[in-house]
């Protein structure tokens, strides 16, 4: 029996050079993915601490102020964080939104898919008047909600950041007041009506963060021992823990629950 010789496979190097266009494209794709993922992770971690610190209002203004002071002295941590987070926030927005379907048609399709993978009409168009029932796919819908909440966070968060920047770097025209974060300012600001904005921002950011962390875990760490089920449990924990905590904090900042825990 004469052997069937399989085609000899040339050395990879002879087929591909480091300067090749394909290689550059691949490098860029990897870098992009890392940037959006890492900035997302950094922001998520920041938000955990941020929301925890904010919740100190539930122990009363003095606890809140002491914490704020701790973050300002001796190192101007808040200033540094503000700059860093501002940049990361911006970078994340730019890089993460590259995955948002751009063209209107595509986006429409994607949003439909969030409602039902069946409506992913593909090559045929779904008759919108038909009584065909729809079936949701949970994680696909989550992704759509991540995009939506991302938009909300962009708007409300940017406003909040600007406000805080102004607050931290100037004395806001309040004579005798040191520039910085203080319970008085926070409470007066939130209680004055901004609480609506904060409630929306809080809910949006918690959703966005929890979904993002869930997907990051699955995308990078799924393994025989780390199955999706665990990531999903963690998602539910993050979501409900921070949603409840955040709600309490908002109510605390808006007045009624301030110092409720002491």
């Amino acid at each position: 029996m004469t052997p069937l010789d399989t085609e000899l496979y040339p050395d990879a190097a002879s087929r591909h050079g480091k300067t090749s266009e394909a290689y550059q494209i691949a490098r860029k794709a990897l870098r992009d993915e890392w940037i959006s993922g890492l900035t997302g992770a950094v922001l998520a971690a920041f938000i955990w601490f941020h929301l925890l610190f904010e919740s100190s209002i539930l122990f009363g203004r003095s606890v809140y102020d002491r914490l704020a002071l701790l973050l300002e002295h001796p190192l101007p941590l808040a200033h540094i964080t503000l700059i860093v987070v501002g940049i990361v926030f911006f970078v994340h927005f730019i890089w993460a939104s590259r995955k948002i379907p751009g063209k209107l048609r595509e986006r429409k399709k994607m949003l439909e898919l969030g409602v039902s993978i069946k409506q992913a009409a593909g090559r045929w168009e779904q008759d919108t008047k038909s009584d065909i029932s729809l079936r949701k796919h949970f994680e696909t819908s989550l992704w759509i909600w991540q995009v939506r909440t991302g938009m909300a966070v962009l708007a409300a968060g940017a406003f909040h950041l600007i406000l805080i920047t102004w607050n931290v770097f100037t004395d806001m025209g309040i004579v005798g007041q040191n520039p910085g974060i203080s319970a008085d300012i926070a409470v007066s600001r939130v209680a004055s009506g901004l609480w609506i904005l904060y409630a929306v921002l809080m809910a949006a950011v918690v959703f966005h963060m929890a979904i993002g962390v869930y997907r990051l875990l699955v995308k990078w760490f799924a393994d025989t021992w780390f199955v999706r089920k665990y990531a999903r449990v963690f998602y539910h924990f993050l979501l409900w823990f921070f949603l409840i905590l955040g709600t309490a904090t908002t109510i605390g900042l808006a007045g009624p629950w301030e110092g409720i825990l002491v």
Partner: protein
Amino acid sequence: MRVITSDVLVIGAGLAGERTAIACAKEGLDVMILSLVPPRRSHSSAAQGGMQAALANSVMGEGDNPTVHWLDTVKGSDWGCDQEVARIFADNAPIAMREMAHFGVPWNRVKGGEQQVFIKGKKATITEDSVNEGLITARAFGGTAKWRTCYTADGTGHTVLYTMDNMVLQMGIPVHDRMEAIRLIHRDGRCIGAIVRSLRDGEILAYVAKATVIATGGYGRIYGESTNAIINEGTGSWLALQTGIVPLGNMEAVQVHPTGIVPTDILVTEGCRGDGGLLLDVDEYRFMPDYEPEKMELASRDVVSRRMKEHMLKGKGVKSDYGEHLWLDLRHLGEQHLKTKLREVYDICMYFIGVNPITELVPVRPTQHYSMGGIRVNKDGHAYNLEGLFALGEVACWDMHGFNRLGGNSLAETVVAGMVIGKEVAKYALQTDLSIELGLAEEAAQMERRKMDSLLNGDGTENVYEVRDEIGRILTKYVHIFRTGEGLQTAVDELKKQIERAKNVKVRTTAPGMNPELSTALRIEGMAKQAYTIAKGALDRTESRGAHYREDYPARDDSNWLNRTLVRWPDPDGEPVYEYEPVGLLDLPPGDRGYGGGQMIDMTKTVDEYNEQVDPGQTAKGRLSPSEATGARLPKEAWRAELEGKE
């Protein structure tokens, strides 16, 4: 009409077809593959068990070699096979397995040290030699002396077919899927291609080639109840029978498996009974010990099937909307066992019939499984009487299986035959000129168009599905495990009527395109006529051999019937012509198989006398002369050392 030319036309993209295509493409030939379905959906992918090859890597395969494999195969065939072909097969099987490993099949490998296994249903411990660690391992199968069946878990056919198709991709061989060959183009004993109907849009095309290869798999679906894929409707063997000159061999040799589930007829493995599963009747009574006190549920496939049928005929079957069946009881094996060792069986029961084998009985019945017979070819795979036509795989009667094939031998056959016959096809194509006879192709296409026209617009009255079901019912009733002269005569008479009905079919759908009803209607004549050849062949063969069991002639008769049935159908409106030829050179003289019991009537001729008439006998029936003299590949009496070494 579009005409597509190539050097080699391979009809069928299962393992046999693709391996042939690869062999030809390697020689620089321009190859074209046709298939009813995307290649990876071919029925080869459904085989789970494995492929036999004497690699002898596992400790349970120690002492194995191609000669032992050959011995098992010849005995398994009940001496109905061509012993030289069986030898070519056994010698090349190990090479084929290794080559498939080279191509990428993730064969399960030997793991050194102690292993927990089941032997004959009992827990046992074997110790694998660490020297062999990492080599291809093997499992046990029915009718084999050694553990010889190479496997990838329970998806052997799947991985081997996927790997093969990867090679087809690598070599850039085009596959036109959803294309059905419906007629061969031939003249003066030379085949130059096929007329093909597109199952995408109904277009009729001609594919013209120097060599045409049929590798279309089995015809199990003619039986209706079958473990085969629903596309296995015998369209390939019909291509040959339709020519009127190419004979089909041993059509009456049909294998039945004891445990197809009801209603879907999906196979559940023999391992169920191997691990302790029991067969129960309508009263949930365990009946096998009454029939086979020795082996009970674990007697050989044909014996168990026969007993099950016998019991059902006594009125002990369970009646259901899907016909009668018996029960397979796995409940006592326990959840743990069913969810690990028999996971596939568990899944099949849960998904397909909604039966939980942990708590419920599984409905089973003996079901048609494999066709030993098919297009008769010489040892190069060249069809009788028609130059330029080759056949291999389940559709062919190359004849290494005789009247009964061993589990694990048919998947291996497809790949080995692809290697061996593929080379001969290439050789033939390289020394032949392409003859594009458009007139001839047009003529052939015209015949098919007329047929379609009469089906669509004629004044027929029959419903094609009813005729198809009736054919299956007749075969399953009379030409199954038990055959009697009386029953077979009824079948022959009834099937004759079905052939007439088939001519009178009316297609209700006039929609253009794929038209599934028309597709079936175009196949129905072939199904009816092949059913007839099976029944008639079985009626004429007045002996029992392998899977062909005649209650009225229970003995194997080597004095009269040590031969192969050949059937041609020269006059489409007349009767088929039956002839018989010697099975091939005998090296191992006919004897006791060592299982199955049964009586034997000895040969009257001596082996030498028999062997002398092989060449003239086969040539007279239209065998084209093979590339090597008959017997060139059969090492004389190599088995003696093996058998004597044992004593």
